[in-house]
């Protein structure tokens, strides 16, 4: 009966081959330039029958030898030339084509005894358990069979295959142990991993298993969810093994001229050798034990051929001890075919180097080193209008910039341009050719930094060819890439087609990515010097008109008519020049702390003039303030980028003129301030002593739910932290607001008052896991303290500031927390990366539909309204809609 099934399967495959051939014929008629697209109607998954394997094989493998004395592949060996060729010069004996043209052909070996396929043991086990050991019928009474079948079909129609499988599983687990067909008593069948089946602790041979599976009628297969035309159960026990073509296991020739075979070839060699020995022993009538042993060995080899990482089996190794990489390992996991070769993509026309800053290039430009620009190319098609132009590139050749590296003939043949071939190429060139010319200013490139967690991690920039060996980017775009210049590397891709370039420019160019879809504010803003500069300019600078014009022109402002016509201009007036004429804005600056705004701090812009307030991080910085957001809304992305660029340049230009430097003296405090800080610290230490006294006396006031010790610790921590904060406030109060260190802290460019206090006054309490430092010796942190000493300095309180210098103990405590936080980040980064991967994979197909619901790929509802409020954050202002403004705009 099985044979008829196999015939059926063959017919099925033959038919599909015929269809394929017909399709090929029709394809040939069509223009090769036109892509043929077809919709896949269905896919059938099945198993190869022994007959099928034999039929598709082009050679039978009988010997484990690979090459003869001359080094040619042996006939009937594993490298048989009928299985394809991997040596140049040889021809495939099956298809007659040469290396690279022949895709390879399967072979087969006849196994001396049947072998269980490891990847199917679980199915075989369930099958054996649910069929009768005598008659191989499924252990369900005849009268119920039809009902069950109908039920299953119903379930599948209603809820899908997944539900059907569930029901099948349930049915299987509820089977009786007496066959309802022939009344035979069933035995308990267990699996001894990986491939041995036991029936009542007696071993079932694969021959017996195969015999039982063969007897299962087709109708019963259907209940198990097996389509017998393409997957008869007995095919899970191998009698014939397909040998993969040599092209998928090529050998490598080492420098010494020695050949090194692929892991698969090694494994197959083992299989063939043992198989031959088994054959010989059987025909020689060897004792059963020897045959059994060989059989087991063959089973092991075949099993490891499919999967070499099965828990119960010893891994098959090379002579060097390194494990063989067999079929399953080729596909599985990160280094496998799927994640490494299919999901992971490698491209040409890309570059990667270290990055460095260049504030003088535009925000949407990228500085490309000349040597890179001479290797990356852009294809340009020759036509009669640009022929002269492109000829010049070819003339300059690959060594003179801007030249060309290749020409491509209309028939697709690629030719390298060299000094020798230059003349010929020039002669040959005519419309229809493609010239691959060097990268030039203004070309489109996609710039990227890993990890690409964002859509802003990949943006389109315009090329600017520069000397040097690093990729250059404007420091303002560091934030979306999360880049800094401590050795970061970034990637550059050059789109090769007109469509790709258009897509990159329209969808990914830097200005299109200004407003973050996460919080609706600009991701690009001024940083560092640009903030300090604008802060100084708008806070206290004024200058002669000539100087102001100097600065403005250096920034690229050509129309300075907005600058008031007077001899001496104010910094605010200079800043206003770069703002659009009709821009109105009102917002807080960083100096308006805690709602106490005043004339000086609150930013008001009226008709494009900065009337009051200072520009600082709150309004110029990335991720903060609505000024940039409002400019973007009013004037669009391109204008915003231009304005932002001007503001940025203005800031740095001001610092060029004004000078900007810091020194230790910036953190000097007047003597009375120093005394006050010392007083605060002394007071804190005294308070702690008092607390300890109370603790010792047993009069310490307890905190709710805490023991005496815990209360003491918490109280001490509180007192010390308060002292540090108070010291910080004193520093803030007494520090000279004109010094540049303070300017940086005030404007938000870099650093804060806490950092300042740590330099000028005290570093403060070092905390390890939210507590004071307690580790070290028994009862004390370091051997220079007395046991049981609870005082601040014995538990990591650093009284000195960085400027004064730390005592050895203090320095040690600082190192403890420093090392701890370093370890912490080192552990956290990979963890959060994996978490992100899981989230991204789980949510990648969620989409907001036109009715504002969020749905997955199967159209199941996840949210009834996107974000519950239905707001498109990238069109909002910091995640909110300004209703008042919308109404006012409507009124006008």
């Amino acid at each position, binding site marked *: 009966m099985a044979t008829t099934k196999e015939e059926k399967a063959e017919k099925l495959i033959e038919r599909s081959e015929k269809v394929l051939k017909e399709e090929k014929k029709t394809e040939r008629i069509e223009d090769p330039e036109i892509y043929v697209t077809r919709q896949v109607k269905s896919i059938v998954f099945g198993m190869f029958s022994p007959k099928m394997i034999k039929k598709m094989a082009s050679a039978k493998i009988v010997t484990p030898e690979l090459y003869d004395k001359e080094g040619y592949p042996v006939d009937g060996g594993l490298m048989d030339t009928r299985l394809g060729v991997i040596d140049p010069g040889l021809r495939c004996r099956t298809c007659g084509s040469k290396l690279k043209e022949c895709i390879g052909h399967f072979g087969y070996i006849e196994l001396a005894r049947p072998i269980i396929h490891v990847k199917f043991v679980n199915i075989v086990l369930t099958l054996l358990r649910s069929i009768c050991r005598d008659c191989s019928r499924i252990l369900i009474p005849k009268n119920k069979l039809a009902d069950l079948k109908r039920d299953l079909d119903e379930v599948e129609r209603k809820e899908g295959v997944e539900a059907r499988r569930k029901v099948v599983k349930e049915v299987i687990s509820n089977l009786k142990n007496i066959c309802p067909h022939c009344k035979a008593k069933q035995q308990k069948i267990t699996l001894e991993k990986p491939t041995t089946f036991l029936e009542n602790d007696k071993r079932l041979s694969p021959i017996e298993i195969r015999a039982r599976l063969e007897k299962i009628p087709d109708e019963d297969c259907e209940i198990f969810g097996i389509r017998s035309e393409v997957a008869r159960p007995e095919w899970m026990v191998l009698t014939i093994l397909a040998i993969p073509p040599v092209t998928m296991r090529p050998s490598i020739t080492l420098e010494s001229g020695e050949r090194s075979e692929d892991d698969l070839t090694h494994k197959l060699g083992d299989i063939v050798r043992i198989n031959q020995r088994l054959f010989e022993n059987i025909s020689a009538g060897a004792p059963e034990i020897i045959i059994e042993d060989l059989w087991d060995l063959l089973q092991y080899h075949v099993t490891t051929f499919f999967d070499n990482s099965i828990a119960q089996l010893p891994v098959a190794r090379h002579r060097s001890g390194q494990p063989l990489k067999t079929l399953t390992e080729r596909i599985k996991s990160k280094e496998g075919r799927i994640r490494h070769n299919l999901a992971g993509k490698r491209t040409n026309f890309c570059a990667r180097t270290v990055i460095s800053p260049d504030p003088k290039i535009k925000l949407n430009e990228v500085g490309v080193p000349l040597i890179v620009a001479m290797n990356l190319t852009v294809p340009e098609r020759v036509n009669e209008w640009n022929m002269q132009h492109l000829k010049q590139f070819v003339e300059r050749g690959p060594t003179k910039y801007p030249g060309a590296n290749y020409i491509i003939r209309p028939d697709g043949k690629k030719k390298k341009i060299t000094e020798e071939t230059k003349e010929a190429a020039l002669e040959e060139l005519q419309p229809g050719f493609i010239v691959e010319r060097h990268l030039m200013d203004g070309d489109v490139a996609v710039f990227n930094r890993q990890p690409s967690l964002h859509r802003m991690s990949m943006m389109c920039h315009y090329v600017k060819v520069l000397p040097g060996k690093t990729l250059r980017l404007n420091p303002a775009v560091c934030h979306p890439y999360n880049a800094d210049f401590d050795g970061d590397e970034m990637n550059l891709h050059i789109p090769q087609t007109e469509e790709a370039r258009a897509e990159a420019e329209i969808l990914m160019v830097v200005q299109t990515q200004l407003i973050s879809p996460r919080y609706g504010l600009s991701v690009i803003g001024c940083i560092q010097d640009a903030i300090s500069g604008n802060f100084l300019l708008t806070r206290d600078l004024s200058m002669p008109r000539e100087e102001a014009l100097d600065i403005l022109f250096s920034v690229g402002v050509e129309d300075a008519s907005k600058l008031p016509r007077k001899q001496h201009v104010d910094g605010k007036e200079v800043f206003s020049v770069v703002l659009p004429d009709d821009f109105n804005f009102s917002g807080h600056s960083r100096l308006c702390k805690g709602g106490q705004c005043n004339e000086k701090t609150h930013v008001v812009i009226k008709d494009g003039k900065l009337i009051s307030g200072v520009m600082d991080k709150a309004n110029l910085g990335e991720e903060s303030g609505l000024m940039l957001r409002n400019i973007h809304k009013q004037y669009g992305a391109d204008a915003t980028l231009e304005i932002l660029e001007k503001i940025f340049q203005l800031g740095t230009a001001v610092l060029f003129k004004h000078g900007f430097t810091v020194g230790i003296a910036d953190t000097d405090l007047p003597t009375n301030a120093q005394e006050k800080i010392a007083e605060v610290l002394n007071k804190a230490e005294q308070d702690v002593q008092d607390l300890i006294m109370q603790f010792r006396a047993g009069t310490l006031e307890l905190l709710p739910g805490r023991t005496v010790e815990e209360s003491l610790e918490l109280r001490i921590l509180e007192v010390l932290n308060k002292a540090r904060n108070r010291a910080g406030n004193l520093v803030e109060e007494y520090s000279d607001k004109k010094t540049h260190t303070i300017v940086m802290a005030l404007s938000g460019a870099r650093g804060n008052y806490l950092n300042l206090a740590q330099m000028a006054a005290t570093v403060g309490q070092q905390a390890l896991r939210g507590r004071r430092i307690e580790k070290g010796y028994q009862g004390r942190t370091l051997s220079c303290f007395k046991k049981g000493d609870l005082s601040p300095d014995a538990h990591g309180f650093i009284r000195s500031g960085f400027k004064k210098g730390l005592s050895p103990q203090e320095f040690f405590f600082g190192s403890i927390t420093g090392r701890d936080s370093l370890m912490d980040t080192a552990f956290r980064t990979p963890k959060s990366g994996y978490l992100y991967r899981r989230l991204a994979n789980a949510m990648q197909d969620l989409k907001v539909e036109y*009715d504002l*619901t969020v*749905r997955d790929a*199967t*159209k*199941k*509802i*996840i949210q*009834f*309204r996107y*974000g*519950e*409020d*239905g*707001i498109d954050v990238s069109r909002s202002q910091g*995640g909110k809609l300004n209703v008042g403004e919308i109404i006012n705009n409507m009124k006008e």
Partner: protein
Amino acid sequence: MKKKFDVTKHQLVPKHLKVSEKEKAELLKRYNITVKELPKILVDDSAIEHLEVKVDDVVKIIRQSPTAGEVLFYRCVTNG
């Protein structure tokens, strides 16, 4: 009998209500869906124990949302 903890009294558990057949039909029509496309909730979920709902009923959940104040959410009762 031991007194059971009533989750519906907990401040973090939003209000669950049974949806009438009419309202259910309206809901399905509004989003052009069948019950299969709705988010699910188990019949024995402690938050809907007191509602005495059966499989394929729809439950309305009134939640407090940080972005939009009060928000309605619907779940279809299933048995897993």
